[in-house]
């Protein structure tokens, strides 16, 4: 009897101890998030003035200036990246959901896409460098040097697997009955996929693209030796270009306080963009991606 009592006391103690540990773990996870956001706001908010968004950086050591070139540069890069990543990614997703379901090819594509998502972004940058930027490659006018073009390609390639998988998932959620209705009317397959299935899944597909967009918006490593960075305003695809995360990286490591200040402000802008994107995605998916589809 005594042994039993002792055992059960140990058991309930363990149970309670584990509960405490789990709560502790949760607190330890939530804390850095709160702290990071706190610092971003605390250190960055004060520098967010009109100058920040409209001026380009001053030469080193001088105070003032802004990150307009980085914001515009990010816009250019992300535009190019989306132009590559979204159509190809959606196409891949359409293949996986509409044409290749269950086939070995589709399974290997899916697996490869998931694995590709895990490849470090710096490796993507290296490959883009070797392919486009390296001086050995110069048979086309936009090859052989650092450029926004190479940066956009590196980022675009990173978007493809993400967009592909989320598109596939959203298409698989379209009820089979909707496809049957279209086929039963004698609508050709291509038209049915485009006008009916894709359209029905479009809210979810768009959120998938937003997620991929938010992810590459914060990527620095692939841009280090493709877009390179540019302290002047530039929108040319054929020249090096600045990007927000790139600028933050350089400024964070610089010895000048003023640039540190700008780095915090830039980080705040970047994180706000990402938080908005993530929240939107959550909102749309929780509301029910396929409104009205029975």
């Amino acid at each position: 009897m005594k042994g039993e009592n002792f055992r059960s006391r140990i058991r309930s103690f363990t149970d309670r101890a584990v509960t405490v540990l789990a709560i502790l773990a949760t607190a330890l996870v939530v804390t850095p998030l709160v702290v990071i956001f706190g610092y971003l706001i605390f250190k960055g908010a004060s520098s967010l003035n009109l100058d920040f968004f409209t001026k380009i950086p001053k030469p080193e050591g001088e105070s003032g200036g802004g990150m307009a070139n980085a914001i515009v540069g990010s816009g250019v890069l992300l535009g190019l990246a989306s132009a590559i990543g979204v159509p190809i990614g959606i196409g891949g997703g359409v293949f996986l959901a509409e044409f290749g379901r269950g086939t070995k090819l589709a399974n290997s594509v899916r697996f490869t896409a998931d694995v590709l998502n895990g490849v470090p972004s710096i490796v993507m940058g290296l490959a883009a460098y070797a392919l486009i930027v390296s001086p050995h490659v110069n048979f086309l006018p936009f090859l052989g040097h650092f450029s926004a073009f190479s940066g956009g390609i590196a980022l675009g390639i990173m978007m493809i697997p993400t967009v592909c998988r989320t598109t596939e998932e959203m298409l698989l959620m379209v009820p089979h009955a909707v496809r049957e209705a279209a086929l039963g009317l004698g609508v050709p397959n291509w038209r049915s996929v485009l006008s009916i299935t894709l359209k029905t899944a479009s809210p979810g597909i768009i959120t998938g693209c937003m997620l991929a967009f938010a992810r590459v918006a914060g990527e620095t490593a692939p841009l280090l030796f493709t877009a390179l960075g540019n302290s002047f305003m530039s929108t040319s695809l054929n020249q090096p270009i600045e990007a927000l995360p790139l600028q933050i990286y350089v400024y964070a490591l610089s010895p000048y306080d003023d640039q540190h200040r700008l780095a915090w402000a830039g980080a705040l802008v970047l994180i706000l963009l990402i938080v908005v994107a993530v929240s939107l995605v959550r909102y749309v998916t929780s509301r029910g991606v396929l409104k009205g589809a029975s």
Partner: protein
Amino acid sequence: MGVGIEVTNLNAWYGSNHTLQDITLNIPANHATALIGPSGCGKSTFVRCLNRMHETNPIARVTGSVRIGDLDIYNDAKPVQVRRRVGMVFQRPNPFPTMSIYDNVASGLKLNGYSNRRVLDEIVERSLKNSALWDEVKDDLKKKSGASLSGGQQQRLCIARALAVDPEVLLMDEPASALDPVSTSKIEDLIFQLKTQYTIVIVTHNMQQAARVAEKTGFFLNGRMVEFDSTHKIFTNPSDKRTEDYITGRFG
């Protein structure tokens, strides 16, 4: 005007499952023909062979011949062409969720490239009137989505959508089984009206329904067509014992 359907030696497989065995029958034009039988007897598969929807399943296979009017649908036409001449209404109403009522009805035409606005307006109105839905939706044609209607209304919308492409044959796979009795009787009234214009083939679990709307009835069992005759005969004096057993409720 509807056309007749001639089925000769139709066999169908799902993979290695021989779902339909040697079906031969003639479905008369401008009549309603009911297909009855217990679950899994192949009547849905049969109907789906008539508009080549059976083939949308990659492991499906068909042999034999089906002539709709003068068209051999397996040898002389591609599936897409066949389906434009043979309309289908499914068991569960399936209006396109992203489209308005108007767009739903017009979808068969718009998605096939037809764009004449005036004619589309006429066709939408006519189809909705033919499917007894016009009065209920005429004010909200473009404002309400197809999915916002009640179940019975959705099914009538699907019928309107099928009618809009002016098919020669209308296939209905248990069209009222997911609906309440009031909607069911509205649909049955519809079939009554429609059969003067189209050839209708209706699959039903409900023998009373078959008796109410169809002139001819076919009894399917285990992938074979056991008996095909006038509805009156099937239900009062069937020739085959299995038919008698089914309609007296001994099984199924």
